[in-house]
């Protein structure tokens, strides 16, 4: 039997893995293509249909929440006169954080020649795109009159008014817009050779034409590859500062104020790290079911997960440092409002959430000091989820604690989310899953051409 007709699993059985464990030791290009493309051309499984159905319910929920919000007003949420920022802002910051990891993996790891990225970068980028798109919705929903939100954009208008350039929100709008545009372009660029592969493999005329249009006439010539690579690397080089800027600017939304607990110079880097941290956690959380569902165990291996777990560990350590620095800075500033806020964070009514956040973000990743946990699917998945929960708690607590415990004690207040806050959050999650499931069925979940390249470099393919 020729190796070309074997599946990845059989290849591993026959030949073992490459030295760094990233793929079967012998893996023909054809197998790589088949492995990835099979998931697309297979008939949709019942499980997939159920998942798409369930997540579509989430989309409907999201739609209803938005409709009710537009009809009734911001008042359906739990925000109040003092805690004017609630779930919408927290969800925005959280989603955009998740959206950071894809680009990070794609660009930073590409530039630093981390070869293992090849199998995971595609869906990590998709994740980025969807997360950033959802993140982009929340600021719109957050504002009192969403239909006028375009006033944030500088455009020639009869009022001859520009946006307020000093406002972090305007910086934010530019950062998100740039980031989303970049994410789409970068993701699409990476897709082009694979779209061509799918075009070539497709059986139906319609699919062929559809993939063909998006493949932009790719034929895999050396000249195309040369141009493609220079362009792709240049994009990646652009992406890295964007990853840093997007979340720095989000951090500035807070840091540029004079509220206790917000006005801290550590915020921009701390937000960037937090974003990568939550993004990687989300990638880990998604990888585990994906490799199982799409049968990509031979391409996305435990070594990939091991590498990501190490990054999570690093993130957890930096986050813990950031938290302790916040406490120190609060104490060191000598401001009564700052100190009181820190006490409030630990022992106030939201204290239990704060402790939970510390456990999720600081403690949980410490498991990854041990190789056993880094390579165990269950602990990986659980820690991934915990970090996501912890990071979301961090986002909401930043809003709630400071605004509920500001400068004047007479304005101390409380934020209690309403059912609509929760439904909208759940709905956004539904939308994310829905988009992701569709993606997994239509577009190669792993980058075929990059895995081929990897196989070539690893000497697995001939």
């Amino acid at each position: 039997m020729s190796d070309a007709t074997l599946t990845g699993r059989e290849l591993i059985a026959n030949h073992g893995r490459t030295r760094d464990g990233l793929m079967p030791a012998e893996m023909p290009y054809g197998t790589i293509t088949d492995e990835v493309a099979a998931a697309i051309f297979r008939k949709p499984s019942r499980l997939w249909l159920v998942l798409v159905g369930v997540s579509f319910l989430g989309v409907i929920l999201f739609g209803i929440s938005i409709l009710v919000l537009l009809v009734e007003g911001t008042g359906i949420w739990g925000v109040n006169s003092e805690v004017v920022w609630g779930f919408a802002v927290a969800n925005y910051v959280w989603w955009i954080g998740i959206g950071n990891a894809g680009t990070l993996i794609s660009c930073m790891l590409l530039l630093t020649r981390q070869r293992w990225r090849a199998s995971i970068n595609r869906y990590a980028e998709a994740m980025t795109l969807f997360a950033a798109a959802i993140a982009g919705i929340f600021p719109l929903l957050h504002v009192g009159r969403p239909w006028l939100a375009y006033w944030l954009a500088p455009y020639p208008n009869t009022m001859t008014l520009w946006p307020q350039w000093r406002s972090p929100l305007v910086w934010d709008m530019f950062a998100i817009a740039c980031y989303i545009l970049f994410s789409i372009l970068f993701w699409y660029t990476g897709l082009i050779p694979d779209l061509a592969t799918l075009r070539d493999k497709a059986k139906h005329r319609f699919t062929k034409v559809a993939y063909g249009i998006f493949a932009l006439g790719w034929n895999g010539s050396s000249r195309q590859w040369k141009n493609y690579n220079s362009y792709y690397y240049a994009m990646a080089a652009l992406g890295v500062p964007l990853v840093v800027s997007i979340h720095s600017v989000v951090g500035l939304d807070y840091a540029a104020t004079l509220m206790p607990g917000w006005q801290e110079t550590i915020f921009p880097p701390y937000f960037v790290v937090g974003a990568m941290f939550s993004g990687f956690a989300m990638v880990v959380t998604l990888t585990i079911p994906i490799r199982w569902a799409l049968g990509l165990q031979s391409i996305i291996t435990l070594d990939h997960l091991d590498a990501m777990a190490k990054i999570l560990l690093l993130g957890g350590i930096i986050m813990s440092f950031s938290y302790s620095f916040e406490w120190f800075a609060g104490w060191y500033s000598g401001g009564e409002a700052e100190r009181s806020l820190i006490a409030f964070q630990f022992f106030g009514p939201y204290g239990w959430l704060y402790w939970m956040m510390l456990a999720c973000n600081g403690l949980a990743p410490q498991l990854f000091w041990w190789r056993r946990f880094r390579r165990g699917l269950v602990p990986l998945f659980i820690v991934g989820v915990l970090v996501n929960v912890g990071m979301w708690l961090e986002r909401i607590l930043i809003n709630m604690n400071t605004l509920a415990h500001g400068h004047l004690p007479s304005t101390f207040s409380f934020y209690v989310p309403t059912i609509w806050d929760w439904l909208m959050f759940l709905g956004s999650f539904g939308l994310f899953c829905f988009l992701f499931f569709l993606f997994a069925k239509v577009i190669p979940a792993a980058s075929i051409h990059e895995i081929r390249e990897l196989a070539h470099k690893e000497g697995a393919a001939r």
Partner: protein
Amino acid sequence: MSSSPTPFRPREAFVSDSWPAPSGEELLPEARSTTFDRRSVLKLMGLSAAIPLTACSAPAEEIVPYVTMPEGLVAGKPRYFATAFELEGIATGLLAESHEGRPTKIDGNPDHPASLGGTDAFHQAMVLSLYDPGRASLVRKDRRFSTYDDFLGDLTRMRARWQESEGDGLEILTGAVSSPTFQRLMAALKESFPKLRHTVFEPVGRDNERAGVRLAFGDDGALAWHPDRAKAIFALDADFLGPGPQQVGLARAFAQGRKVRTGSRTMTRLAVAEPVMSGTGATADLRLPLPRSRGDRLLRATAAALGVPGIVAPDGLKGREEAFVETLAAELRGAGQAALVMVGEAQPPHVHALAHRINAHLGALGETVRILPPIIEQTAGTSAEALASLTERMRDEAVQELVIFGANPVYTAPADLDFAGALEAVPTSVHLSLYQDETSEACRWQIPQLHPLEEWGDTRAKSGLVSIVQPLVSPLYEGHSPLSLLAALAGDYAVSSHQAVYETWSQRRSGGGSDEAAQGGFEDFWRNVLATGLVPDTGVEGADGAPSSDFSQPGAFDLPPLSDAPPGDGAFEIVFNPDTSVWDGRFSNNAWLQETPRPITSEVWGNAAAMHPADHRALGLRDGSLIALDTADEQRITIPTMAVPGQARGTIGVTLGYGRTIGSIARGIGTDVYPLRTRDSLWFTEATATPIGAHVTLATTQGSHQMEGREIVRTVPLGDLDEGHETGAHFEGEPPTLFPEFERGPYEWAMVIDQTLCIACNACVVACQAENNVPVVGPEEIRRGRDMHWLRIDSYFEGEEDAPRVATQPVPCMHCEKAPCEPMCPVEAAIHDSEGLNVQVYNRCVGTRDCQSNCPYKVRRFNFFGYAAGQEYADLGDPMLNALQNPDVTVRARGVMEKCTYCVQRISGARREATREGRIIAEGEVVTACQQACPTEAISFGNLSEKGSAVNRLREEPHHYALLAELGTRPRTTYLAHVQPELGAAKAPDEEGDAT
């Protein structure tokens, strides 16, 4: 440290160590948009059909189109009319602002001695009552629609009977009335029907004051206090700075002696002993929490300490009380003639009489306190006794017809009278009232009354000075004046209120004669009266002259034996007080007042019972826990509680006027405490308190009442100012900024608030609401932490629970020069204008709320719903209420941020005026709504660019400071620190310790 969310407990931040925590209740907000069921659609259609017939139509009598503009009227420019408002028969002169025939705002009449330009919250809220869609608007008979003509038909038959019986069986029940016209018509009616009986009943009233005067001087008289002439004041259970008909006049007079400025470093001292922390108690320099029943003992001790002859010092004084008396006596003795001892209505007559003796002994009688001839015609005995005998007659079926003017005895009568039961025995009962209430439901005839802004009338200030009540608008709803009803009872069905009042005064002027010349002279006089709002030569300053009796020296009287046995085991002294928002219940349908935060506790939309924090803890309660109060005569009410520092131990303070069963706004809000109030215990009673284990979430607007060691309300001892000490209150220099300085123009507006003068009366809060179209949000929204007031009065407790110092602080927008909100706004809706104002452009606002998130003072308010436009609370979206809006101020839409503008519409108005005359705006030309309303003139507003302006002078005072100045915001609204005089030579009472 609580680890799970528990209900919101604002005061516990002070009372205990725990943090206030949120409530998990009401997660799902109720949709606010109108549900269009059949009934509401029909209602709306009916209303829109009715509006053109009433609100927007010219009066029936005369139609004058503006073909040529009437002289003096400029379209778009408001006109002001003098009128008056009376509470319990005591008037305050007012000016009503009218925009094209729509009254929109009430302010004080500067010429009226009881106002001098100031107002209280009740006056400010009066315009809302005018338009209130919940007002009675239909004549009803046996709860079915009827007409006034039908009533007159019935009346004719009744009158036939009265003619025969000389009015036997006809009874008239009114509240306290001082109106000369009403008294004239009543006298005429009595002449026709000599056997009719007139009963006066006020649930609060001033019976004890009157009885005290009678006891001390042997004749009826009315008390007039002059705190402006006093150097030391002792208010025993007297909330004279709190709500009530005389609040404005007394507060302004009191403030005269409290203004600490360079060159004037003296202060009137105020000592207060009271059971419940009131606005007066919060203002006091020395305060003693004292059960109501111990007032007698304390005053006797004070009298004895002052050496009032014939007074034996009582024993059994507690350590704290003794120390208080010692300090107090030293202060009063030191002040001598300039001392003033006041006793509140809730104290029995002999305590009032004793106060007269103390005042006389100190030489203060005739100086700081005067006895004036009574202005209110009153039946013998107290009003509760009078009502009791009326009820007796009703029950004996001796009453054929009962005509009730305004009063609501079914709700307010002492519970043991069972007025409602007795009313069933009356064949024909007639009720004239502004609102359909508990009494009108129980009466055969319900006749809607006109609002004071729709009818003519006259009324008297405490001094007897007469004001004419002028209508500003033709009636919005069907209504009838008490004057025309009274005339109708006498057989004259066609008398309008205008005719009645006019006749009274033309008769008085001409002395009965009616020659042509006198008539011409009268027209001039009358026009002058209407323009000024005052009838000259009335009252004690005028021709009505000197008192009929000798009130110069109190006579001898016997003091009854002391009776202040402490309540039995597990029992509390229940203390009744009129409410700061609804008084005795008469204002309870007024949404502005319902949403006005109670001074000190900031509760709105309810009347939780106030308890001492230690008592509260001992019963295992938290704020909002319900307790059952059971009296000896088996009356029970269930009421939520609240721990309030400064409450006397062993007492529970409750306020009247809540728990109404009728009223579009009032119904179901708060707890009715009248069931505990009986003839013999009108002011306090004894009851056991049992927690029932249930809790409600109180609606409060303030988060924590503890300053947490931050310099928020600064306090400076008076002595430190005298010696020119560095008080530390003055912020040094301008904090640095990264932003370029603004250019200074001819106008740089600024406000200075003197915290020593603030009495937390809320007049400014409601005035701001009326002036700036600030919407009401309703109790559910308040519980969610949303409120819309542009100006709030924060209060903080300091010191110990038993003797807290209370600091109050009005907080409007600070109009920071380096406003943190401005750079946050992405669309430049929050910007700085050329006059130093921090303005909010509503049209431009997209509602990001970033401005509020970065406002350290949290003074911005967000329209989470269309509170004023489309999603109003209860019936406040009624089309009629559109007419209430100030046309100079935008009504804000949903999703828009708003805040205090320094009444920019008034600044613009003054600027237009000045520009036309080619000059700049002069000092004092712009008066903000809060400043105008403030009875103590605590708020100053003006132009920093003008060297000699009041704000510039005040900003030079050593006790001037800016709130949170260390943040570098450079606020334009700044404060004068609370100045505290040192009392007496005696030790501070805290050091004495409590003997209990």
